[in-house]
C-alpha cells in the first residue's frame, strides 16, 4: 500500500489557545483581588446566566480542571487517594473524585491553595452532576449552591412546556444569584453572553466540519486542546472570537492542503473522553498513518449541530444568523435552554440508539475507516450504552476496537495492552507501522 505524504505545519493560533486557557485559571484564582466573584460548576452548566452579575464574574468548570490534573500523574494520584481516604468510592466519576481531592488537599493545579468559589452554579444531566457540587460545597464549608434539572428527554421530544420547566428554574436561579451575591442583575450582559455562546458553539461545529476534508486539517489530540476552551467559558466573547479566528485558519489549511499529520491513510474516530494521561496513544496511531479526525465527544460536547435539509449534519444556525434579535431576559433564557438541549452529547443520556445514529452519521460524513471505543470506567454518563454503540457501528459496517480505561484515573488504564490491541486492530485494517 502506498503511503501518502502531506504538508503539515503547526497551528498559527495555537499559542493563543494556550494563553486563553492559562488566563482563565489565573482570572479565577485572582478574581477577589479586584473585587470580583468566583463561581464553580460543570462545563455543561448554563454559564451565560451568572454573566448578568457583572463583567468581573469568573468561573471554574470542574471537568476540564480535573482533566488537567489527570495529565499531571503525580498530582492526580494524590487527589484520587485523598478522596478515597475520605471514604468516597473508587467507582465514582473520576473527574468528580479528582476535583474533590484538589479541595481536600487544598492545592490548586496552577499553584497555591484551592481558590474557594463564592457560589456553585450547576445543572443536572448526568448521574453525578448535582451531587458533585453538593459534596464540593460541604467540603468547602458550605458554599451556596444552585442546580438546574435539565432531564427533560432528548431534543426530538422537547416541547414548549419542557422549555418552560427549565426556564422557570433559570428565572428562579437569577433571583437566587441576586440574593446570594447581593448584586443587581444586568439583562444586557446576559443577552451578550447568550449570543456569544451560540456564536462559539456553532463556530466550533463549523471547525469540526472542515475535518471532513482529506487530509484532515486537525487531529483529535490537537482538537482536545481547542475544544476545551468551550468547556471553560463557552459564553465568553474571548472564546467566541477565538473560535471564529480558528475556523478561518482551519479553512485556510483545507484550501492549502495542510494536513494534521504527515501521513493520512486511515481515518478513525474515538469516543468519550480519552485517558488524559495517555494521549500519546494518538501519536502511536500516527505511526500507522492513522489519524483520529474527531468523535461525537469532541464534536458534540461543545459544538451545537442541526440536521440540514439534505439530511447531513451541520453547525446549528445561530439566532443572529437567523436575524433574531434577543431583547428580553425571558427570550434569552428560552434560547439558551433550547440551544443547550439540542447539544449532541446531551442526547444519549436518554438512549444509546440516539448516540449510535449520530456516530454512524459522523462515520459516513467524515469518511471514517474505523472506530476506537473507550469503555471509560471514569464516566458513567458518557459510557452509558457504549456496548450498544459498538454493535450498531459493526452492523453499519465499521470496524470497532474497544479498550477499557479511565479518563482520570490512570490506575484503570493499561497502556501496554492498549497499544498491543491497537497493533492488532491496525493489522485487521491492513496497516503496519510505517517505519517497521
Amino acid at each position, binding site marked *: 500500500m502506498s503511503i501518502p505524504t502531506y504538508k503539515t505545519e503547526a497551528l498559527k493560533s495555537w499559542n493563543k489557545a494556550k494563553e486563553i486557557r492559562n488566563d482563565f485559571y489565573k482570572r479565577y484564582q485572582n478574581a477577589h483581588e479586584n473585587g470580583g466573584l468566583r463561581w464553580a460548576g460543570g462545563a455543561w452548566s448554563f454559564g451565560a446566566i451568572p454573566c448578568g452579575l457583572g463583567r468581573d464574574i469568573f468561573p471554574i468548570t470542574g471537568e476540564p480542571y480535573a482533566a488537567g490534573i489527570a495529565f499531571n500523574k503525580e498530582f492526580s494520584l494524590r487527589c484520587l487517594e485523598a478522596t478515597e481516604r475520605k471514604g468516597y468510592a473508587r467507582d465514582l466519576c473520576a473527574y468528580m473524585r479528582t476535583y474533590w481531592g484538589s479541595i481536600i488537599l487544598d492545592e490548586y493545579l496552577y499553584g497555591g491553595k484551592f481558590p474557594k468559589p463564592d457560589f456553585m452554579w450547576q445543572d443536572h444531566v448526568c448521574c453525578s452532576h448535582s451531587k458533585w457540587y453538593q459534596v464540593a460545597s460541604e467540603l468547602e464549608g458550605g458554599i451556596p449552591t444552585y442546580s438546574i434539572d435539565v432531564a427533560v428527554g432528548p431534543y426530538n421530544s422537547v416541547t414548549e412546556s419542557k422549555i418552560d420547566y427549565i426556564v422557570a428554574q433559570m428565572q428562579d436561579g437569577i433571583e437566587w444569584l441576586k440574593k446570594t451575591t447581593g448584586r443587581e442583575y444586568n439583562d444586557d450582559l446576559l443577552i451578550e453572553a447568550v449570543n456569544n455562546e451560540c456564536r462559539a458553539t456553532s463556530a466550533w461545529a463549523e471547525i469540526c466540519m472542515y475535518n471532513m476534508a482529506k487530509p484532515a486539517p486537525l487531529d483529535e489530540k490537537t482538537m482536545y486542546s481547542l475544544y476545551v476552551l468551550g468547556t471553560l467559558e463557552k459564553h465568553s466573547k474571548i472564546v467566541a472570537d477565538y473560535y471564529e479566528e480558528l475556523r478561518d485558519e482551519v479553512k485556510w489549511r483545507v484550501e492549502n492542503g495542510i494536513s494534521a499529520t504527515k501521513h493520512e491513510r486511515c481515518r478513525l474516530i474515538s469516543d468519550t473522553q480519552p485517558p488524559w494521561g495517555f494521549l500519546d496513544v494518538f501519536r502511536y496511531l500516527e505511526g500507522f498513518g492513522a489519524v483520529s479526525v474527531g468523535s461525537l465527544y469532541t464534536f458534540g460536547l461543545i459544538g451545537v449541530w442541526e440536521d440540514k435539509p439534505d439530511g447531513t449534519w451541520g453547525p446549528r444556525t445561530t439566532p443572529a444568523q437567523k436575524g433574531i434579535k434577543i431583547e428580553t431576559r425571558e427570550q434569552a433564557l428560552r434560547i439558551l435552554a433550547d440551544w443547550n438541549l439540542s447539544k449532541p452529547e446531551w442526547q444519549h443520556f436518554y438512549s444509546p440508539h440516539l448516540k449510535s445514529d449520530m456516530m454512524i452519521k459522523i462515520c459516513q460524513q467524515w469518511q471514517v475507516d474505523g472506530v476506537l471505543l473507550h469503555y471509560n470506567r471514569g464516566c458513567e454518563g458518557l459510557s452509558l450504552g457504549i456496548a450498544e454503540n459498538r454493535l450498531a457501528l459493526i452492523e453499519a459496517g465499521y*470496524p*470497532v476496537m474497544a479498550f477499557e480505561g479511565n479518563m482520570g484515573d490512570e490506575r484503570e488504564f*493499561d497502556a501496554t*495492552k492498549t497499544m*498491543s*490491541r491497537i*497493533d*492488532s486492530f491496525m*493489522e*485487521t485494517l491492513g496497516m503496519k507501522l510505517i517505519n517497521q
Partner: protein
Amino acid sequence: MINVGIDLGAKNIKIVMVSNGEVIARGITLSGFETKENSTALFDSMLQEHGIARGDISTITTTGSGRKAIDFATNSITEVTAATKGATTLFPTSRCVIDVGAEEGRSIRIDPNGKIIDFALNEKCAAGAGAFIESMGRALELTVETFGPLSLESDKEIPMNAQCAVFAESEVVSLLHSKTEKKDIAKAVNDAVASRIVSMTRKVGFEKDIQLIGGMAKNLGFVDSLKRALDSELIIPDFPEFISAYGAAIYND
C-alpha cells in the same frame, strides 16, 4: 527456503519451521524472564537438531506478547493475525477462531475470505486464560495434565464466579472445605473459564466452523465445557499450541 515463525507467549516460546508449506520442525521452551536469550537458544538448538543452516532461512516472523524482543526477526505480526493465518490455512472453513493461551484468551470472527471481521480479547482478567487453570490446579494439588481428564469424570454442575480469578480461588477453597470432590471442582473451574470465553466469543458473534487453538485446547475438560457452552462441535488441530507460530511462519507466503 525455510520460513520460521516464533510465538513468544507469556509462558512458552513456540517455534515452527516450514519448508514448501510443510512443517519440518517444532520446538517449545519456557519463556522465563530472558525471552530473547531463551528464544535464541531454542532457535539455535532446532537448527542444529534438524541440520538447517542459517542461510537456508528466508524469513523469521515473530508473534505473541513478547514478539518485539527478538532482534533477528525479519517481520513481526500480532497474535490475532498469526492465529487467524495459521487456523484458516489448516481449516479454511473456520469462521471463528478461539485462541486460549496462558495469559490471554481471544475470539476472532472471520469472513469466508479469511479476513478478520472482529476480535475480542479478555480484559484485565485472568479468568479467561490458562494461567487461571494452573492456579486452580495448584489450589487443588493437581497437575495440569491430570486436571482436564479428572474434570471429565464429574457430572455435577457447580456454578462458580467466572469473572474473577481471585474470587474463584476463594470459592475453590470453600468447596474444598465443604468436602466437594476434586473432580467436581475441576469441572466447575473448566466450566467457569469456558463461560468467560463464550461470553467474549458471543461479543464478536460467531458462526460455524469454530476452531479452538492455543495450549488450552489440550485440556480435554475445558474442551468439553466449551463445546457444551457453545452448543457446538469444535475443530481442534494437531499441535494446537503451535498454530500461531505456524501462522507467523507462513505469513509471508
